[in-house]
């Protein structure tokens, strides 16, 4: 396959696949509000928050995994999808925030403020969202030009902070000694350590032959 083919077929397919969880959640809430049986269970807000939160973490991990994966296979083509995956991470964190603020707190902003002040995991979550916000806003080619590539790159390193805060958000949320948040945290830590290791050693990824896919 050529680069053009991957772009033409790969992007819509990936877009469709990454949309599916959000599509499912939307359908379930639509069923809930029309009084129909739905997949949201006994405590719909809890399911909705957890579901959108897990998918945010998965999208963030996927976005952080693109570069290491490209380096691993020594091909540049995965980088073509990085922006889309990153934007999906931002999309899911927005859905997650919407679920929590709109459906769980029912837009009670004083309750949001109390949550931020009293619960450190909420602070981490809000922090992760605020890290991703400028990245989504400056995701276009125009912004790369406006900021200049080095500055744009430096700004987009905020995604590391977002990953770190998202992992902490989940770790501090659960009660009891739980395995799942530790697994997410370990994966994110590995993806960040890979970058640290590279920055100390060989520098940016150099592909053997950038034309070969």
């Amino acid at each position: 396959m050529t680069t053009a083919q991957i772009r033409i077929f790969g992007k819509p397919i990936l877009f469709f696949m990454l949309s599916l969880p959000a599509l499912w959640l939307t359908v379930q809430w639509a069923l809930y509000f029309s009084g129909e049986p739905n997949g949201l269970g006994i405590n719909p807000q809890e399911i909705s928050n957890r579901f959108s939160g897990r998918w945010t973490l998965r999208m963030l991990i996927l976005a952080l995994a693109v570069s290491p994966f490209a380096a691993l296979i020594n091909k540049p083509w995965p980088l073509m999808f990085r922006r889309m995956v990153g934007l999906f991470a931002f999309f899911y964190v927005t859905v997650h925030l919407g679920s929590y603020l709109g459906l769980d707190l029912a837009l009670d902003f004083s309750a949001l403020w109390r949550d931020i002040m009293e619960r450190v995991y909420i602070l981490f979550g809000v922090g992760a969202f605020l890290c991703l916000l400028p990245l989504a806003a400056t995701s276009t080619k125009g912004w790369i030009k406006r900021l200049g590539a080095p500055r744009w790159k430096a700004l987009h390193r905020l995604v590391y902070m977002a990953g770190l805060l998202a992992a902490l958000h989940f770790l501090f949320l659960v009660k009891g000694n739980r395995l799942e948040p530790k697994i997410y945290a370990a994966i994110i830590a590995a993806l960040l350590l890979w970058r640290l290791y590279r920055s100390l050693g060989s520098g940016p990824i150099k592909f053997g032959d950038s034309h070969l896919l």
Partner: protein
Amino acid sequence: PYAQAPLNKALSTEEPQTDYKALTSYNNFYEFGTDKSDPKRYASAMETEPWSVKVSGAVEKAGTYSFDDLITPSDLESRIYRLRCVEGWSMVVPWIGIPLHKIIRRLQPTSKARYVQFETLANRKMMRGLRFPVLDWPYKEGLRMDEALHPLTLLATGLYDAPLPNQNGAPLRLVIPWKYGFKSIKSIVAIRFTEKQPVTSWNQFAPSEYGFYANVNPEVRHPRWSQATERRIGDFRRRDSLMFNGYAEEVAGLYSGMDLRTYF
């Protein structure tokens, strides 16, 4: 005997009761898994017949009791209580059981007995959740003696006119309606009368978050959930949580003179 258990109106709430399906498919019973749907899925592996409870410590009638030794069917009564989970959700549950004080009086604790500790079954073959150390198994809970003897404290054996389903803590569990749900220990196999405040599982795991008393208190903040509000299962919006889960009139006297921010 369950369908005939008389309703104790004086101690029951008239609020709408939570659906049987919700009560039995949304449970925290970590011995079967940490997901709310795990207990319903896996608790059937627990055998509850025969069942025995070991009574020990500062008590005259120490020994091992069968379910039938402890539970006299004619003593069963029905009580509709609010249940408030520390995670910020609540239910209204029609329990059937025997006030704990009736059973404690029969066991005759000695003058040294100032606290009671309870322990949940920890059987690796029947409880798949024990494979992972979410907590230091077996699960333990405890009460001060006056709390245990309070008329509201119930040893429940049934739910909605029938014996307790396994996921709700069959065959017998505690219900202390003015405390967070985790105090209401399930599937009890041991009762120990002690002089000193006993170890309780959540307090042991995170003492800064889960106090020994764990009374529902909207004024004591928690690092994970708002305790000022709660979602009644079935409602879309949250409602304000009440001091002692709305049982202040009955139980506030137990804590007079205590700083409830220190003893949370």
